[in-house]
């Protein structure tokens, strides 16, 4: 049963299994295990980013395609929910319509980009996605009448899912709509993740891996490489859009900075590389580690910057705003020295 649920792709390392179980338990019990608003928010973010990063891994780790437009698809889903909720009023129908419309738009756009660029050379794809993503980001802030521009959109979600909906106590924790909302996110993310696991372990996923290793040979064996690459792009875009919808449902706000910015794209890249490219579990570990670090490490850097304030240059380097620079260095180092990421390392150790 469990093997079937994981599509036969087991962690294959005792330490990795333990970590994954710990993450799963913490996320599943987050409202009861931790107190306060911030841990719950962090847990929801982790759930959503696991899906987002896993969908990116389908592209980067399995198909070997570099895309810079993943946040664009993420944003499409988020804006879909936001626009539907704004124009249709609060309600579950708006959420569903918005999510489906966002995912469809993402698939169509991915199909167009894929057919244009993957046809020629995979490397075009990276450049073209960068261009298209930046154009979309500019368009979103330009057409402020529709999208709220730089300010973004704030909207209402069904009352059942907000903290105004109180439903008594359970295990000493007050159950509110917020917790219901969290479980909506949690189970949706879990389902999407298992679906992605199913996809990469299907024959389709194997073909993608073959193309990643040697596209010429895959073509020679008789697989239409372009078709497979484009299909992977579309699938990954649709999943990213759904993750965006979940993000919008959780935040009740969308804006260019939270959904479309290049920084998020870099975060995703980093999570995939640190966790481990080419395994879905890498996405889980990468996203969890990264978001924990993002939430708690920046405070630490602030402290370090304070502590060194009378030294030259060092406080500037340690300022919380420079956090991206350290990430960049970490990123370069991990591409050089840990190309298989944390998961790869753990699995190697398991074998030894």
């Amino acid at each position, binding site marked *: 049963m469990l093997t079937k649920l994981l599509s036969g792709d087991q962690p294959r390392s005792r330490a990795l299994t333990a970590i994954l179980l710990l993450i799963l338990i913490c996320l599943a019990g987050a409202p009861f295990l931790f107190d306060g608003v911030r841990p719950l928010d962090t847990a929801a973010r982790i759930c959503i980013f696991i899906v987002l990063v896993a969908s990116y891994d389908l592209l980067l780790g399995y198909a*070997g395609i*570099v895309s810079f437009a993943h946040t664009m698809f993420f944003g499409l889903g988020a804006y879909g929910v936001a626009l539907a909720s704004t124009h249709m009023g609060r309600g579950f129908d708006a959420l569903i319509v918005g999510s489906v419309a966002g995912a469809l738009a993402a698939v169509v756009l991915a199909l167009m980009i894929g057919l244009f660029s993957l046809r*020629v050379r995979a*490397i075009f794809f990276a*450049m073209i996605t960068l*261009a298209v993503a930046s154009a979309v980001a500019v368009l979103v802030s330009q057409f402020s009448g529709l999208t709220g521009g730089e300010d973004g959109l704030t909207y209402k979600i069904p009352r059942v899912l907000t903290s105004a909906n109180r439903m008594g106590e359970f295990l000493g924790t007050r159950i509110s709509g917020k917790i219901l909302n969290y479980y909506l996110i949690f189970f949706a993310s879990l389902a999407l993740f298992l679906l992605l696991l199913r996809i990469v372990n299907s024959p389709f996923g194997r073909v993608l891996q073959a193309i990643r290793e040697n596209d010429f040979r895959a073509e020679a064996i008789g697989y239409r490489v372009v078709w497979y690459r484009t299909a992977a792009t579309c699938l990954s875009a649709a999943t990213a859009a759904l993750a965006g919808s979940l993000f919008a449902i959780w935040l009740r706000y969308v804006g260019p900075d939270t959904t479309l910015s290049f920084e998020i794209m870099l975060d995703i890249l980093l999570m995939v590389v640190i966790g481990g490219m080419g395994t879905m579990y890498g996405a889980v570990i990468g996203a969890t580690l990264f978001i924990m670090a993002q939430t708690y490490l920046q405070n630490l850097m602030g402290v370090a910057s304070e502590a060194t304030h009378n030294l030259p240059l060092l406080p500037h380097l340690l300022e919380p705003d420079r956090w991206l620079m350290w990430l*960049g*260095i970490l*990123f370069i180092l991990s591409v050089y020295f840990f190309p298989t990421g944390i998961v790869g390392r753990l699995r190697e150790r398991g074998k030894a």
Partner: protein
Amino acid sequence: MTVAPDHKPTFAKMSLGEQLDKAMPVLLIPILVVLGFFAIGAPSSWLTLTVSGLAMGMMIFIMASGLTLVFGLMDVINFGHGAFVSVGAFVGVSVLIALGGWTGTPSLLLNIAAVLLAVVAAMAVTGVMGWGFERVIVKPVYGAHLKQILVTVGGLIVVEQLIHVVWGPDEIFINRPETLKGAITFAGAAMEKYRLLAVAIGLVLFIAMRMVLRRTKVGLIVRAGVENGPMVEALGYRLRMVFVGVFIAGSALAGLGGVMWGLYQEVITAGMGERMMVLVFIVAIIGGLGSVEGAFIGALLVGLTQNYVAFLEPKLALVSNIALMTAILMWRPQGMLPVVKAK
């Protein structure tokens, strides 16, 4: 035994259609200019727009030329190229601000000296930086596109953040030197002096680059290396050295482009290189990766289209470049002047 038939190669004259097809990329620019003339209607605004479009195109070309050559020569795609644009702009502008006395006076000689010093400083710094970048970031990942993209993006982030550390997080405003301010009126059309200068510099650079590539030994090796690297190496040339040289030159040109773009916009930010990268990539793709001439034509097309469309329909200006790229890729999927690789 029958005698082998005589081999009589005949060169048929290319038909008009074939000739047109071959010359089409070059013809696109005048066609676009003429189309722009009819779409805009007023000759004076058309002239102004054409000049600013050409100026913009020249600056993009300067930034794109290094990127496209590096790709052609070593199959290395440098997503960190934008970092050199930013650093060049910051170094150049710092020099210009330091020489405030020279740029503030309306003396042509002092102004030009200040700008030249700024350009030299920017190119020197970005050239050295390019050398370091090649050694530290690019060298370990030859032959692996995926890693190249990831690592060079990492390099871009780090350099951008270092700019924040050195120059602070705020954007810097800069005034053009006195004699480069203002505009010349010609046939009722106002043309900014600085834009004319940019067009002139771009043209000179393009011609110089073409001369180097076509008429010198180094250029010959570079062109041969683009077409068939292993063969050039087999003939005893150290292609690696050539490549490092091209990388440094390309980085220095990106720095020059950064200074020019900074003076054009009169404001510089650490993220400007990243934003320019989008245009640079579009130009490199529609020109055909690896082709300097293609990048030149592509850059002019992008500059002109952007300026015409911005005048006709401001909201569409942002999408116009993507539309242009789509159209050209539908017509020629490898770019306008694709580099023929001997494989």
